[in-house]
């Protein structure tokens, strides 16, 4: 499949996308291996194969822009700039995690970079995103909010409510429907009537478009345009990005119900391999790209080792970050 870089895409920007994507991939492969080795507690939902969505959208955000994410949110967090050491420690449930070990993979948040939280409930981030946008306007900020959710979320009420709300108040929100074609173990098209996210958004009056979510340059280009429109005060936009979840719903799900041929075809569209091929074709030295991938792998291995070496949280911290009233009562 030939990818043609849109005008304005220089090699350096593509390399930035590539770096973010291989860091996400390396983070998740490292976490997955640790999880399968029994070193990591709890459920783990990885986004392997979907990295272009997070990288392409977040490359167009400012540090003070906010994002909300979902249960498959490591990529969104990394692309927004979340600290890797804090993320890895959080996944392992160790002291030093972004949430002090109280959240885990499904509740990664790094408010210092505008990452307002992953979410364990499908569509849970949508009302939060529109409210964050409303609050930002109230405090006089021109920051915007990017709201990541999957194809499953468009069948929940908050999708309808949130899009209507954002359109009604012309809020600065970019809704990003990361359509990997599957809601847990069920194909999205088996449970979704009508023409899907774009048609639903348009029916509400939210301008929407689709792009190839496995083509990082295409995601970047579409997101760049829509972010500019949102930031200019044009109200919300929806970007629908078709991608493919290469692995199962969780680390323990083999997703064996999918035909091997389908998965093989999807692997051939791997967004990282595609971007790499394009860069090499355009004259980027392969050695440089290999070095980026090697650095990402080393970064994640070191983060894993540091997390595994970190102490468990002090059990006393189970009683911190509670209500002020409860803390006063405990004292």
């Amino acid at each position, binding site marked *: 499949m030939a990818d043609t870089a849109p005008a304005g895409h220089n090699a350096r920007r593509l390399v930035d996308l590539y770096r973010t994507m291989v860091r996400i991939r390396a983070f998740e492969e490292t976490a997955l291996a640790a999880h399968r080795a029994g070193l990591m507690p709890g459920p783990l939902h990885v986004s392997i194969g979907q990295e272009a969505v997070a990288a392409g959208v977040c490359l167009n955000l400012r540090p003070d822009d*906010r994002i*909300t994410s979902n249960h498959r949110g490591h990529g969104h967090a990394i692309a927004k700039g979340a600290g890797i050491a804090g993320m890895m420690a959080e996944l392992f449930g160790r002291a030093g*995690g*972004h*949430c*002090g*070990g*109280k*959240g885990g993979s499904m*509740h990664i*948040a*790094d*408010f*210092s970079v505008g990452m*307002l*939280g992953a*979410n*364990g*409930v499908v569509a*849970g981030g*949508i*009302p*939060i*995103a*529109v*409210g*964050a*946008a*409303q*609050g*930002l*306007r*109230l*405090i006089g*900020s021109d920051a915007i*909010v990017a709201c990541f959710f999957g194809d499953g979320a468009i069948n929940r*009420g*908050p999708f309808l*409510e*949130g899009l*209507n*709300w954002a359109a*009604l*108040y012309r809020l600065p929100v970019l809704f990003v429907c990361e359509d990997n074609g599957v809601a847990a173990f069920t194909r999205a098209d088996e449970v979704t009537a009508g023409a899907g996210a774009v048609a639903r958004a348009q029916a509400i009056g939210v301008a929407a478009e689709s792009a190839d979510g496995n083509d990082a340059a295409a995601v970047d280009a579409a997101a760049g345009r829509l972010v500019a429109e949102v930031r200019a005060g044009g109200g919300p936009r929806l970007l629908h990005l078709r991608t493919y979840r290469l692995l199962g719903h969780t680390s323990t799900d083999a997703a064996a119900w999918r035909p091997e041929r389908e998965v093989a075809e999807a692997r051939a569209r791997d967004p990282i391999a595609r971007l790499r091929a394009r860069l090499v074709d355009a004259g980027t030295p392969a050695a440089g790209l290999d070095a980026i991938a090697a650095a990402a792998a080393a970064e994640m291995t070191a983060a894993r080792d540091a997390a595994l070496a970190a102490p468990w949280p002090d059990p006393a911290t189970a009683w*911190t*970050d*509670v*209500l*002020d*009233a*409860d803390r*006063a*009562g405990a004292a």
Partner: protein
Amino acid sequence: MDAPAATETLTLVEAARRAALQEMRRDPRVWVLGEDVARGGLFGQYRGFLDEFGPDRVVSTPISESTIMGAGLGAALVGTRPIIEMRIFDFAMCAMDELVNQIAKVRYMFGGQARPAVVVRMPHGIWRNSAAQHSQTLESWFAHLPGVVVAAPSTPADTAGLLVAAIRSDDPVLFFDPKNLFGVSGKVPAEIAPLPFGRARRVRRGDDLTMVAWSAILPDCETACAALAADGIGVDLIDLRTLWPWDEDAVAASVARTGRLLVVHEAVQAAGFGAEVVARMVERLGPAALRAARRLGAPRVPVPFSPPLEEAVKVTAAKIVAAAKAALGA
């Protein structure tokens, strides 16, 4: 000696209006969202707000309870302090994910990064024969839920003081306005000070029985206590005002003195917050210290519509008198 603070006699709903008005004037980060709030709200509790604060701070919303609740949270996460108006409590059922899974969790789940400084106003209880979906009192659900403050005042002054405290709180406060008492009048200070959470109010003093209550049942308790007094029975009546945190010390001190406890609530008796109060007193004082430990609440049926049916199931002053006498006979 200081001059007594200026006070005014106000209805409960007007006291609540003044409290929110005072706080919105004081802090530009405070705003209100909910159905019809720009028209003053269902009960007039935001009357005049639109003219003073404009449509960005007084936001009438679609009937989208999930997003009213969730957007309030999102706006708090970027530093504003929303008052989330749910119109009546029963409609908050449409926003349980946003309330239970999100608002109540984010401070803890994100390791202290988030401060969900929201007030969720949910006028609750029996009111004008509104039947099963507009009359519920389920405050015990939320006393059971970690991560939220639960306020359930019964007087104009307490409503005003607790609402000011709720708006200034960095923690989420579920504020159960007693909608059947919106028209009740009482003295309210012109300058409304925040009332700390977890401090009960002694309504009347007596030595024979401790009666604990909150929210809209208080006037019935007072009527019952007056009738009991006429029979020579002295009741120590305590209004908890907040259910989480709640003033265990005040109740324990009273029960240690009277030896008899009756908890009265409008909500269904089974698994109501009265059970918690009784259990804590037994644990804390020991069973021997209590000659009676009882609850009075509604039967476990939905609230019916027809006046005689509603009257049959709801807690009344007569039922409170009977329950108190039964406790004294024990």
